[in-house]
Structure formats: structure tokens, C-alpha cells
């Protein structure tokens, strides 16, 4: 339940009282935000008093008589326009004068109401203003949240790019100044580390491009009948050498072909992120088991490892951008911190979701579900905002 403040400005006491009575038990239901809006009315007998009250606490809606002694309604409107407040004004015009209404609207009034008006006409105008105000505020709030998230993302990104640069710069300076001596083995170690950090940056930039394309809906999606098992097979083969270096066995469990409408590139991103994580965060001589299955129009991809695992607390934030679990065992593992966030976004594109079950020192199982015949619409920002809207309203209410 939200309450909007209305200030009624009229020099006739009977008029002010009438408005207050009409709105006393009035409420507006807004299905758009799943909310009920009530009104609290205050009164001012002159333009001067109105401006004073507005300075003290700006109302949400101003019911403003056009014809006032002293400071006129239009003067009040002009003063309002100069202030950084989002009060909506409904101008009350003494005569059914279109000209006055047009002037008022040009000078910032949201709507007008011609005297004499019925309580129903008053409620109609207030309903319209309330709806406009609430939706506008909500849109602004969502835009602000989005801006904030964007800003945080860029801050972290800058940081993640700065770190490897600093490391590489450090090695180059040491080599230039000869401050670590001239031992070729030491020089080679510094070159190797620099190359590793450059590779990390490259991976970050590539992941970032994937994420940006998926997010903006600009990535040209080529939906075709794809056999998920076959994609899993080829991704598994591609990563087998990396696994074998550490004695890790990778096995694909898929009994029969699983066909779905999908963009092959997106499936490859999901599978390679999950399987390469399962290898990276595994113990030496461990196992990775990849399961692909389908039932009830839903495709499920699961990747289980015998790795270091994580606590529930750590798992809770894992799919967020740049969240990497930092401890003595993950320290030497390179990662962009974007892989799982990309996996989750792709799952959402297919009307599915990504989840993890994990136990420290035992291993983790990542599961991604995809709708077999999903809406082919990419999840644009608008669609995301529309989905977020009712939720935001509930939180606020």
C-alpha cells in the first residue's frame, strides 16, 4: 500500500473541503505494479501558502486552482518548474476555457480539470496522475539500479584488467633494469609468467565479448536442430588433452541423441565453461562425468567433478559476475570470473536455469536445464525490465 500526498490549493474553503471529502476513502488499484494507492490530502488557501508548503514538503500531486488572489495558479506552476521535484500538477480552471488549459499544460501542468466537476471526474484525473507518477518513479528506479549495476561491473572489470597489466609491467621493468640478475632461467620464468597473464587477459576479453553480445541481444543466434550429445562429445574431446595432463578422466554419459532447437555456439560455450571448470578445479587423477538427458521437453546437462568443492555460502554467489572463490587452492587457477555468469545467461535465453550442488573436498555438480522448444526471443533489456517490474513493486509494497 502506497500513500500519495495531494495538496489542494483553492481560495474557496467549500471547494477544498469537497475535494478532501471526495478523496478521503478513494484508492487506486494499479495492476501494472500490483499495488494499491491511497491518498492523503492537505489544503492551502493561497498561492503563497501553497509555495510555502511545497518548499517544506513537496506533495506528489498538486490540485491547483487557476484563479487565485495574489500569486496566481500559473505563477505557482512557473515556480514549480524551476524546482527539482516530480510533483504532478492538475490545474483547476474556473471556466471551461480551453485556452487556459493549454497555457497551463505548456507551462508544466500534467492535466486540467474544469469547474464545475463531479467527484467522479476528480477521481478520474487523480487516478490518471497517480498512475503516471507511480510508473514514472518505478521506471526511474529501475534505470538507476541498472546504471548502478553497470557502474559496478565496469569498476570490477577495470580492476581485473589492471591486475595482469601491473604484473606484466613489473616483469618487464625488472628485465629492463636487470634488478633480478641475468640468470637465463630466471628471465625465462618471468617471460612465462607474463605470457600466462596475457592469456588470462585474452580470455577475459573474449568472455566479455560473449557476455556483451548475449546481453544486448546482438549476438546473431542461429537456431537449428542440434544434437546436444554430439556437441558435448566434441567439446569433451577438445578438452581431453588438458585433462590428461593432470590424469583426470572425462567421461560423457549420453545414451541417445538429444535434439533441440538451439544455437550451436551457445551450447558450446555452456559445455566448455562447465567442463573446463570441472577440470581446472579438480584434483589430480580425478574424474569429470558429463550427463546429457531429456524429459518433458526439457534438456538437462550435468557436469560432476571430484574437485575441491565449495561451501554453500560460496556457491550462493557463484553465478554472479567476477565472483571467483578465493582460497589457497584456487589461487593458482586462472579464470575470468565471467564463465558461469555467461552460462547462467545462456540458460535463461533457453527458458532454463543453472544451478550447483557442492560439497567441500568432495566435488561439485553443475546442472543446466534448457527448454527444448523455447521462445526464440533473446532476452533483451526491455524484456528483463518488464519481468523485473512486478517483483520490484512487491518489494517496495
Amino acid at each position: 500500500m502506497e500513500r500519495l500526498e495531494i495538496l489542494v490549493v483553492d481560495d474557496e474553503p467549500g471547494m477544498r473541503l469537497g475535494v478532501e471529502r471526495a478523496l478521503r476513502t478513494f484508492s487506486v488499484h494499479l495492476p501494472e505494479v500490483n499495488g494499491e494507492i491511497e491518498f492523503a490530502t492537505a489544503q492551502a488557501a493561497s498561492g503563497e501558502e501553497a509555495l510555502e508548503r511545497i518548499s517544506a514538503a513537496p506533495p506528489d500531486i498538486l490540485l491547483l486552482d487557476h484563479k487565485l488572489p495574489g500569486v496566481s495558479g500559473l505563477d505557482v506552476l512557473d515556480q514549480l518548474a524551476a524546482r527539482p521535484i516530480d510533483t504532478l500538477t492538475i490545474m483547476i480552471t474556473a471556466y471551461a476555457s480551453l485556452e487556459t488549459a493549454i497555457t497551463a499544460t505548456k507551462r508544466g501542468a500534467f492535466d486540467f480539470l474544469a469547474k464545475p466537476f463531479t467527484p467522479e471526474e476528480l477521481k478520474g484525473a487523480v487516478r490518471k496522475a497517480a498512475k503516471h507518477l507511480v510508473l514514472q518513479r518505478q521506471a526511474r528506479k529501475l534505470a538507476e539500479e541498472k546504471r548502478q549495476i553497470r557502474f559496478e561491473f565496469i569498476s570490477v572489470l577495470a580492476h581485473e584488467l589492471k591486475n595482469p597489466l601491473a604484473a606484466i609491467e613489473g616483469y618487464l621493468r625488472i628485465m629492463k633494469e636487470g634488478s633480478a640478475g641475468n640468470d637465463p632461467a630466471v628471465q625465462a620464468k618471468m617471460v612465462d609468467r607474463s605470457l600466462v597473464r596475457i592469456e588470462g587477459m585474452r580470455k577475459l576479453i573474449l568472455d566479455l565479448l560473449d557476455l556483451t553480445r548475449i546481453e544486448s541481444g546482438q549476438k546473431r543466434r542461429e537456431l537449428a536442430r542440434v544434437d546436444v550429445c554430439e556437441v558435448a562429445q566434441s567439446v569433451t574431446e577438445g578438452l581431453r588433452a588438458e585433462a590428461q595432463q593432470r590424469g583426470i578422466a572425462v567421461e560423457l554419459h549420453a545414451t541417445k541423441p538429444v535434439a533441440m532447437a538451439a544455437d550451436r555456439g551457445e551450447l558450446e560455450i555452456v559445455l566448455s565453461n562447465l567442463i573446463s571448470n570441472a577440470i581446472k578445479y579438480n584434483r589430480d587423477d580425478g574424474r569429470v562425468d558429463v550427463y546429457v538427458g531429456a524429459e518433458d521437453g526439457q534438456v538437462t546437462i550435468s557436469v560432476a567433478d571430484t574437485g575441491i568443492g565449495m561451501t554453500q555460502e560460496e556457491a550462493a554467489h557463484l553465478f554472479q559476475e567476477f565472483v571467483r572463490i578465493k582460497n589457497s587452492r584456487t589461487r593458482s587457477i586462472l579464470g575470468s570470473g565471467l564463465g558461469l555468469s555467461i552460462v547462467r545467461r545462456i540458460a535463461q535465453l533457453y527458458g532454463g536455469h543453472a544451478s550447483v550442488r557442492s560439497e567441500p573436498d568432495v566435488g561439485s555438480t553443475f546442472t543446466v536445464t534448457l527448454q527444448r522448444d523455447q521462445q526464440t526471443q533473446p532476452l533483451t533489456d526491455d524484456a528483463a525490465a518488464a519481468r523485473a517490474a512486478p517483483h520490484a513493486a512487491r518489494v517496495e509494497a
Partner: protein
Amino acid sequence: MGMSTDSASKTILLVDDDADFLAQLQLQLQAAGFQVIAAESQQEAEELLAETRPDLAVVDLMMEHVDGGFSLCYHIKQRDPQIPVILVTGVTAETGLEFDVATDDERAWIKADAWLSKPVRFEQLQREMERLLKG
């Protein structure tokens, strides 16, 4: 190198969770003739401290836990107040993401013997070390 101290006999404990930063300082200190024991975490450092008494410690303030550097510094001083500790802090201006020690009060409370900000210039570190090892 301009080190007047007899560096060959000096053991330096180096603690930083950034493997590259650690490697860079280690290589340079070794080239300058120091014995270096390096740790990538507070826990590793505590384990090394149980076996060896370093002549000086260079500790990164920001490790896995936000206060890792603080408590390590405190433990070193608790073990032997004579061991000089140089605390290294990340530069925060660009991203504002890292915690930094801003006030003199905080610095006084932490009891480090010297403070350096990243990126650390090796000559500057050497100067501080020389000063503290002499004292």
C-alpha cells in the same frame, strides 16, 4: 646495489597473495643477496614463522581476509617486537574497491614500521629495508 648492510646473512619474510608480485620481489631480493622465505597466505606465513625468525617482513595488507595483513603484522610483533614489518597496500584511487588505511591513527594502531603503496618501486623498498635493518 648500495646495500651497506650485510644482506647475505639477512632473511626476509615476503607475504602476498598475488603470486606475480611475490615472485617479482623474491627474484629481486635474491639478486640483491637476501635469503627470502615467501608465503602466499597468512596461514603459510604463520607456519614459516613457527620455524624461522626473519630479520624483516614485507606483508601485503590485503589478503584473502580483509584484515589478513593486520593480524599477521600483529602476530609477528607479538612473537618478536624487534622484527621490522613493512606493510604494502593496494592503490585504491582507480576503482575504490580495496580497503586502504587512510588515517595516521589507524597506522599508529597497526604498529607497522613502514608503509609502501603498490606498485612498489624496488629502490624505495630497498631504502626502507636498509633503514630498518640498520636500526
